[in-house]
């Protein structure tokens, strides 16, 4: 987290959600939607949907929670501005809010649409294909992960087993450390050989959003699955909340796309615009979100 302001932002959503209502008091009253919560420029990646299509979008809903819609937009903007101020990206600083608001507003008006990187969005597909892991390197890294020394909880095993392609497929369990903000989250990865190649499923202990820590009287529900189910989205069939475990496939095609990998300001602005559109795809899952947001007297989207 000490590496850069963006890393610090990514790792401290708990502090953000504690201070946001105080620093932006006019925005705390904005209409609530089921928001991503911890949205920032590194919250985006690729996956394959049930039809094998390459999809790009938000891939982390650990902190999903009912929040003012402005939370996600402001946090996305702050992360872009912090990254730009470090010289990591070239988005126009004075332009960030306009680009985000335009992407968000356009998506709300259009009723939302996911980013299917096939016949459309060729610019994003080209970037995505360059960011995907090389399968041989990916599996070399997976093979190097240490075996889990502790007993794997029975529920974690059950959660992994449910997503295996064959019910009695044997698999070994390794430990993995990942994420910036996932303080103390237990992770177990099951790796199996299946039909001539390896597959990996990770079970991560799911806990309620840090919003509950900041507002103890709030709901203790884990909103991960609801956010996935409600959003305008082509879901990854291998991501599922199973009891207290979030299970997801680890694969070379499930990769983050970092805005820093794009060279020019024009492309980075375009990606930022797409990020705001994707945030709206998630917010559109909440009932009557466009009408409620449009009726917000404080909203800057008019």
């Amino acid at each position, binding site marked *: 987290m000490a590496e850069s302001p963006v890393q610090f932002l990514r790792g401290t959503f*708990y*502090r953000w959600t504690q201070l946001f209502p105080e620093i932006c008091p006019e925005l705390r009253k904005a209409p609530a939607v089921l928001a991503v919560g911890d949205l920032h420029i590194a919250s985006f990646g690729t996956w394959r949907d049930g039809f094998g299509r390459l999809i790009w979008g938000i891939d982390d809903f650990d902190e999903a929670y009912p929040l003012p819609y402005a939370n996600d937009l402001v946090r996305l903007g702050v992360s872009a501005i912090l990254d730009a101020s470090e010289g990591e990206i070239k988005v126009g600083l004075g332009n960030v809010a306009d680009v985000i608001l335009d992407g968000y507003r356009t998506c709300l008006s259009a009723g939302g649409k996911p980013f299917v990187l096939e016949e459309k969005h060729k610019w994003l597909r080209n970037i995505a294909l360059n960011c995907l892991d090389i399968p041989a390197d990916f599996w070399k890294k997976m093979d190097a992960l240490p075996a889990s020394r502790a007993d794997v909880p029975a529920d974690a095993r059950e959660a992994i087993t449910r997503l295996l392609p064959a019910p009695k497929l044997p698999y070994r369990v390794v430990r993995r450390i990942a994420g910036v903000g996932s303080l103390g*989250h237990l992770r177990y990865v099951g790796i199996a050989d299946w039909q001539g190649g390896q597959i990996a499923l990770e079970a991560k202990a*799911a806990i309620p959003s840090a919003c509950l*820590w900041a507002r103890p009287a709030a709901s203790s529900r884990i909103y991960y699955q609801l956010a996935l189910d409600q959003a305008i989205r082509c879901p990854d069939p291998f991501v599922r909340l199973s009891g*207290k475990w979030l299970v997801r496939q680890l694969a070379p095609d499930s990769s983050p796309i970092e805005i820093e990998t794009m060279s020019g300001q024009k492309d980075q602005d375009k990606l930022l615009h797409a990020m705001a559109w994707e945030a709206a795809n998630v917010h559109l899952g909440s009932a009557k979100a466009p009408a409620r947001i449009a009726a917000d007297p404080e909203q800057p989207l008019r």
Partner: protein
Amino acid sequence: MKSLSDKNGPRSGKQRSERKRQPTMGTAMNILTATKNFEGWVGRHTHVVKSQLSDKTQTDG
């Protein structure tokens, strides 16, 4: 009795700074205290997950 300017007019600099300094839940807690507090909260939730699992394991066993 408050004058109209007291109610609706611009606040003086002193009034504004007093309003700013009013401690609230977030600003009353510094980042180190907040982080320690949050880590404890995560630990308790992870512990809940662990104990629920061990209960289930015992039940299943």
